[in-house]
């Protein structure tokens, strides 16, 4: 049995005939060339004049992405679009209680139901536990359920209706256990234990200098508490996958994941199949933001395919996404900030308490990152940081854009603004006096380099001053006030404190088609395009020749997930190294054919120059046709990253990205409602590989920050999520997000990044809630300490300000 969806290498998108595919590739290249013609001569100033060769000056150009052509045609291969002959449909049976022992699972009625082909419970799933960082999660709940929605069984049937109907026939007998609903309850004496190892997922402590002395030396110490409610990724494509056994007997799972290699290993381990008999292929991902790394449909599909020997497809409903996929950690923060009268920071003393939900997922990474980033991007000579993440009987909390830093920044930046106001120093100046510069050491003892943070402040300052003056001169509209707010970020690129290498391979065939195999998949951010640009630039060929194959666990090395803003830097570096290797191998092959020495051959700008003769790259490929199969440029990027997560000392990231955001809001003081009016976002991402793609990421991040700031929250009552719909979980729409978002890329070059790039992707949401809170303070003299800043909450603060409710 074959599938029309198993296209040739490099093609992620389901299309008609090969002729059609060729036609649309040609159309895409025409469009790209049009764009390059428009920017020709402008090139990329960041590469410098000595680079020349505008045709391959692709790094720094705002090129449209290769996959978008299929997306606008409605031909992109999302997993839910895949149809296979004889395909079954599956759905889960899920726990109805937040904490209970499972006494019995009776599937007898379900098994007899019309159309049902397989019913799988924990008994069939084996005893292997699964998990991303720690394997602590059963494939299907066996003796206990720890949250409402935990999977207990999975059913495959001829139709989705039949599967859903059969799920209702599964009878589960529970013995209820006390449900732990908050971290405080989890940590209380005598609390019911959720996990065999107790109720603490992780506890971390870090220190620098002498915190007591630091607090004493301060002229002003501010102390505040902050809390942030849970939010959801809300990627628009629900998790979805199709699995089947291919003609070679390989169990193939096509799924919208950020990390195919992880699922490949896990499926092999759980099913007992050898690695060569498993393949995981990433489908086109309709958004992820950290929520498509953990297991959702992958293992269930594998087990069902093995049992039924038929293809199986499963797609979550939107309600299921809200109620069962990993979420952001709700967090409480208690923070003390000390500074001298001239605005120098002396102390930061902070406690973080996180709700990790029922299983560990990425809690350890989130927790580690929060502690490492405490105080960033400022130099605090004295620090104490304590963090505890506890289990609760809720949906597990995992990775979500910025791994907790949007929350820690909310507290830190808010308190810095308060300190500036208290000391009578500008909010820019106080940051300038304490912000990281080259040579500073972080709280883990890492020495920083190529720090562009102060440049981001410099970029925003004149705008801040100008707008402040304009607003004070502007007439007041009754009941409405405008305010300006500022917040910053410093963010480590890559996985915290562990080596996370990336590799790339670049291969050419006799016809001149170049394929770049990059492990980290594109989850909709356009990383495939950035990698193609870097690979092409490095190899000296036209970007139109490069097909990127990513996200196939059998065709690329495990380069880690697309996460933690690591793709441009890690995979980009790997692609750069592979490009250099490719170029030298190619030049050497041409030299052999032409009987000259290799240093007389140059591949640049898609042209091969041998002494004074020039030939097109494609012609050169013909020339060395016998050898093209052997030319595989290889790049591995594995920077020295090491930090001891228990002592929190070392170099947890190879490089850091920084930004300053300025926002303008308008608040209606009678209602407490806030509009975001204007955003200025100055980012230090080093060289920007694709400015259009990066702007898009920043604008999207601003929208997500806006959502977290004023309207998003997962409402939980007694362990149940009570707003699992877009009706009651509010996402910003086109009228809520301002068009006035201006991106400023400051001039910086990271000496270790590919062409000087660092990566920007996920960070742009980090400063928004704090900046908006600061703008609210500016407008109305109230200090929000809670997210989301809903209108009733702000009105309450306004009432307090005015001495009681009106």
């Amino acid at each position: 049995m074959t599938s029309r969806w198993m296209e040739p290498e490099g093609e992620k998108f389901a299309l008609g005939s090969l002729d059609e595919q060729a036609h649309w590739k040609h159309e895409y290249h025409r469009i790209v060339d049009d764009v390059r013609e428009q920017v020709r001569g402008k090139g990329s100033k960041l590469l410098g004049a000595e680079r020349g060769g505008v045709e391959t000056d692709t790094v720094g150009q705002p090129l449209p992405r290769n996959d978008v052509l299929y997306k606008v045609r409605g031909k992109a291969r999302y997993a839910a679009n895949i149809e296979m002959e004889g395909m079954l449909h599956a759905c889960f049976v899920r726990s109805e209680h937040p904490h209970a022992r499972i006494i019995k699972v009776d599937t007898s009625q379900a098994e007899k139901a019309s159309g049902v082909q397989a019913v799988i419970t924990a008994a069939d799933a084996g005893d292997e536990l699964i998990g991303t960082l720690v394997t602590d999660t059963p494939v299907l709940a066996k003796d206990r359920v720890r949250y409402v929605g935990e999977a207990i069984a999975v059913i495959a049937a001829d139709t989705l209706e039949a599967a859903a109907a059969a799920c209702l026939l599964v009878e589960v007998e529970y013995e209820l256990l006390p449900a732990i609903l908050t971290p405080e309850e989890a940590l209380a004496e005598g609390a019911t234990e959720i996990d065999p190892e107790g109720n603490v997922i992780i506890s971390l402590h870090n220190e620098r200098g002498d915190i007591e002395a630091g607090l004493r030396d301060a002229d002003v110490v501010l102390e505040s508490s902050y809390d942030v409610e849970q939010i959801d990724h809300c990627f628009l494509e629900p998790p979805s996958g199709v699995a089947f056994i291919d003609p070679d007997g390989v169990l193939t799972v096509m799924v919208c994941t950020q990390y195919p290699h992880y699922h490949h290993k896990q499926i092999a381990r759980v099913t007992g199949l050898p690695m060569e008999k498993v393949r995981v292929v990433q489908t086109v991902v309709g958004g992820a933001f950290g929520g498509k790394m953990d297991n959702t449909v992958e293992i269930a599909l594998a087990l069902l395919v093995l049992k039924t020997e038929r293809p199986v497809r499963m797609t979550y409903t939107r309600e299921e996404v809200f109620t069962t996929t990993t979420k952001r950690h709700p967090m409480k923060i208690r923070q003390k900030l000390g500074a001298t009268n001239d605005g120098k920071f002396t102390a930061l003393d902070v406690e973080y308490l996180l709700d990790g939900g029922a299983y560990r997922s990425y809690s350890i990474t989130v927790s580690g990152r929060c502690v490492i980033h405490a105080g960033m991007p400022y130099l605090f000579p004295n620090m104490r940081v304590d963090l505890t993440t506890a289990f609760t009987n809720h949906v597990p909390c995992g990775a979500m854009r910025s791994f907790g830093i949007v929350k820690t920044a909310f507290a830190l930046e808010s308190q810095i603004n308060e300190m500036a106001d208290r000391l009578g120093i500008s909010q820019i100046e106080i940051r300038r006096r304490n912000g990281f510069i080259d040579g500073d050491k972080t709280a883990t003892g890492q020495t920083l380099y190529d720090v562009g943070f102060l440049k981001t402040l410099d970029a925003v300052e004149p705008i801040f001053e100008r707008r402040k003056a304009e607003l004070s001169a502007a007439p007041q509209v009754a009941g409405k006030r405008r305010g300006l707010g500022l917040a910053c970020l410093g963010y480590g690129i890559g996985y915290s404190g562990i080596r996370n290498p990336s590799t790339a391979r670049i291969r050419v065939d006799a016809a001149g088609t170049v394929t770049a195999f990059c492990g980290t998949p594109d989850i909709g951010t356009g990383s495939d395009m950035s990698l193609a640009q870097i690979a092409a630039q490095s190899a000296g060929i036209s970007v139109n020749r490069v097909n990127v194959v990513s996200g196939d666990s059998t065709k690329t090395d495990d380069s880690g997930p697309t996460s933690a803003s690591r793709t441009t830097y890690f995979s980009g570096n790997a692609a750069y190294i592979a490009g250099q290797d490719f170029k030298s191998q190619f030049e050497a092959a041409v030299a052999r054919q032409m009987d000259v020495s290799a240093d007389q051959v140059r591949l640049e700008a898609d042209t091969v120059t041998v002494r004074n003769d020039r030939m097109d790259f494609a012609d050169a490929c013909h020339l060395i046709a016998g050898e093209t199969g052997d030319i595989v440029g290889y790049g591995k990027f594995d920077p020295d990253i090491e930090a001891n997560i228990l002592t929190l000392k070392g170099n947890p990231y190879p490089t850091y990205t920084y930004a300053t955001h300025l926002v303008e809001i308008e608040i209606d003081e009678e209602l407490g409602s806030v509009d975001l009016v204007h955003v200025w976002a100055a980012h230090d991402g080093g060289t920007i590989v694709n400015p259009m793609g990066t702007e898009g990421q920043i604008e999207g991040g601003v929208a997500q920050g806006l959502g977290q700031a004023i309207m998003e929250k997962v409402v939980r009552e007694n362990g149940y999520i009570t707003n699992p719909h877009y009706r009651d979980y509010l996402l910003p729409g086109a009228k809520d997000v301002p068009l006035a978002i201006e991106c400023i890329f400051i001039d910086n070059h990271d000496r270790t990044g590919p062409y000087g790039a660092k990566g920007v992707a996920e960070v742009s949401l980090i400063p928004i809630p704090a900046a908006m809170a600061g703008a609210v303070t500016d407008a109305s003299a109230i200090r929000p300490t809670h997210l989301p800043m809903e209108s009733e909450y702000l009105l309450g603060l306004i009432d307090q300000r005015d001495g009681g409710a009106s």
Partner: protein
Amino acid sequence: MSGCRFTAAKTVAEAVDSLVAAKGDGHIIAGGVALVILMNEKLLQPSWLIDISRIDELKGITVGADRTIRIGAAVTHREVARSSEIAAVYPMLTEMASEIACGRIMNRGTIGGNICLADPQGDPPVAMLALDATFRIAGPGGKREVPARSFFEDLYVTALGEDELLSDIHIPAPVTNTGTAFGKFAARKAMDYSSTISTAVSLVRDPNGGGIAEIGLGLGGCGVTPVWPEKTEAVLRGRKPDDETFAVMRATLADEIEPIGDSLYSADYKRRVAGIILTRTVKMAYQRTEGASQ
């Protein structure tokens, strides 16, 4: 096999006959935007769908020479929003219809369907209450009329019998010196489906002295049904729209309504917001009366 029967009714009589034959198990469907959500959520598995979306008698907007308005129950929100005739008589109706959810819902959702759903947050009922509209209802016994102000009985319960359907809406003509306005509060700027507060005002200004001669109000999101706040109307009648009046209005309103607290807003906050939005909407309506000064 869905086991569901489908009747594409061509006349009101046919629709009523189907309702009667269905003996309480029939569901009228017009735009479907409310009903199909229930079906998608498996909260409703209909056994007989009676489609009234193409019945001519239920369509059309007529504005008489006397400026009375008749709107067919199956008229879409978009048709109401685009009607220049309605805009010329009651700008508030145009505003209300234009702000419903978003274009997709406006293109299918009908004014009659929305009214019969009687969602406490729905906007058309709010406008109907302010305008003192009359609903014409068709049933096996013929047609009868129910004032909008008596139509909404309880949460999703109206005066419609199980074999009746709403056939058209009649709105009285505005008298001289009428101004109307519609105001809404929601947590985001479109697709507001939860925890919204809406207010509709139809006001007549007394040309002698500038007081509020007559007032009609409607409120959404302030109770289990769309609310007609009679007492609040009463305190406004005969008064000038000054700060003191509005303070009394808000106090009366706070007492009169019983909003339901939810996970977004408390009942007290909703009370307060209703007062503020109503104040703004009354002011707007007043400014729109012909010849109103400032």
